[in-house]
């Protein structure tokens, strides 16, 4: 919580030092397509392609990528469990979930396990690029439904000792506006903030959610029941 990566990372990117992306996806064709798509952006490079969560846990930590793209459904160990484990080893590296369908339940669980955002697999390449940049420079966009669930989860009593983690008034306000369907821009206008500030609020919200659920999360997702599809 104390050190935010955005503060140390220069906000400009160039082809000379492209952003390093690690990809975890079990279907070969999809994996290759994603890799090609990422490589087609001049400022991104796909440095690591993993076919399973086990591969990801072995290969990704030494490479220290800038962002990890993770499929939710992986054979054997799920993407959510993999996220929880990776987040344990490299807490500062953002992880973005890839989902085929817009399943809030699953996305919310993934966010609790440590994901910093999520993308639909059919996302347009331009949106993909901006989402990756969002994750690096601030919080990834959050849908109204997820915002509602985040508010609800923070209002519930924490199961573990991390009761010190709570939202600031501004953060809660941001979440409430999000849940009412306001866009980041509208929130910024309404609260008299810059869009960057709103995004930084979002980033803190994501981080607080991770910290809040981390103690229980890893254990829960590792020993817990398998994630069901659909």
């Amino acid at each position: 919580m104390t050190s935010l990566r955005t503060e140390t990372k220069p906000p400009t990117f160039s082809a000379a030092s492209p952003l390093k992306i690690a990809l975890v996806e079990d279907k070969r064709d999809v994996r290759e397509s994603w890799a090609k798509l990422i490589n087609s952006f001049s400022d991104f490079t796909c440095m690591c392609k993993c076919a399973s969560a086990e591969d990801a846990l072995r290969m990704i930590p030494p490479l220290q990528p800038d962002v990890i793209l993770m499929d939710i459904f992986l054979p054997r160990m799920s993407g959510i469990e993999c996220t929880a484990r990776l987040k344990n080893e490299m807490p500062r590296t953002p992880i973005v979930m890839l989902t085929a369908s817009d399943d809030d339940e699953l996305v919310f669980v993934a966010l609790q396990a440590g994901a910093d955002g999520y993308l639909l697999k059919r996302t347009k390449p331009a949106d993909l690029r901006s989402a990756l940049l969002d994750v690096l420079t601030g919080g990834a966009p959050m849908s109204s439904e997820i915002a509602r669930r985040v508010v609800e989860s923070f209002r519930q009593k924490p199961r573990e000792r991390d009761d010190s983690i709570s939202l600031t008034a501004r953060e809660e306000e941001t979440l409430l506006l999000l849940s009412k369907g306001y866009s980041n821009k509208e929130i910024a206008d309404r609260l008299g903030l810059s869009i960057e500030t709103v995004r930084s609020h979002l980033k803190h919200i994501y981080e607080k959610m991770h910290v809040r659920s981390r103690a229980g999360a890893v254990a829960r997702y590792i020993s817990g029941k398998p994630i069901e599809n659909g």
Partner: protein
Amino acid sequence: MRLPARQQFLAAEQNPRAGIPKKHLLLFVLTAACIAGLFFCENVSAQPYPLTKPQKVTPQAEKVIAQLGLGSWIWTTNFEDKQTCRFWKTFSIPENDHVRQALLRITADNSYHLYLDGREIGEGSNWKSLTEYDLTFLLTPGNHVMAIEAFNDGREAGVLMGMKVTFASGDQTEVLSDDSWRIVPNNSHRWLHQTRPDPNWPAATIVGVVGQSPWWLTPVNIMTPPTLQPSLMHFWQTTWFLSSVLTVCVVALGLSLWLAAKLALRTRAQQLLDLERARIARDIHDDLGAALTQLVLQSEVAQTEYPESSPIRAQFGQFCGSARAASHALDEVVWAVNSKRDTLRDFSSYLCKYAQTFLSNTTIRCRLDIQPDMPASVFDLSVRRGLLLAVKEALNNAAKHSEANEILLRINKEGNHVIVVVEDQGKGFDPELLTGERNGLQNMMQRLQDLGGTCQIASAAGAGCRVEFRMPLAHPAARAGFSWRRIFGAQNGETVAAEWQNLKGS
């Protein structure tokens, strides 16, 4: 008379006081006497004893009779050991008078059960004492049946009783043990309730008077049990009522078991259907959905391999768009089919997403007001799908006609109802001036009515429009009547078929 008394008597008789040489001789004699006595009794028990004749009442006895109000010792025409004798008598209490006190004193050699109008009043087995029953509250005006079942252990036997009834008017009447009692044969079953004697019931025989040996002149004591209270025979205590209740219970039990079995089968069918729907949803999602996603990705990649100006790139762009649209449509099908989505929470989140996506293509902002912590109540497919279509219609109308720059979607749960409101601050319309082209509203209302819900539209020219949908969570047709029909009517297979028809129909 009691057997032990007899034995003692015999033992004393055969045990002369003079000359008892040894203790064991005494014991021997006693034992022999007992055996002899027993043997004697055993031998003669089959033999009837001659009846005792009533003697003249002595002056002392007359006093006792007057004081206690007793009749004579009565019995049937013979004495036998181990003999049961039943006595029966009716008497009536006048309608126009009120019983102030009714005391009944009774004893029997050897024991008795006393009944009044079929109800057991008491019993006794000590012929030396008298029992006094207070029947004041039992003697209602009208006819009564008094019955005594007496039992004799051996030798002489008799029943002695007397009842004195004092009326409010000062009149008195007595019911005494005398030859007006009838002897009821032991094979009669309904005798306690019989109000008329059978012609073959003989009269009782007087076998002795008070003070006549072997009975007492004065009783050893008089026992007085508590005053008897009328036992109101409530209708639910009657035999026919109890038996019909029992029958109803048995029938109800059988019926509920049968229904439970039916319900279990139906629930099982519903579970199978849900599982099947979840499986279909998963299959569509995993196979078709993944293939479509792959198609989108591949055409995106192919697009990048052509220069910006290439017409092929534009074509791939269109291709991507179509594949994306197909993927989106597929999601909607999966959502509808998937039984895991049959909850209110899921419905609300889906509706929000739909509204946001739908309005993102317009200049209208979408505002949401969703009840926090929406419960995951069951929300049946037919209902949620119908409501979704209706809300879509409302959103569409608002987007097309309202010219508002903001549309509010509100979802609440109120009691057992879901309330969805679509509201805009646009130009509104006068509901009175609805023309044919606005028939979408009629459709919307009809759709909601078919599903057991309501739809209210409030609008006025220049004052925006508010459409409120109210839908019961437990769809009445599906949950009550319809399911009863299914429980009673359809077989298991038909139930599933009916369910499918229902799904398809919606």
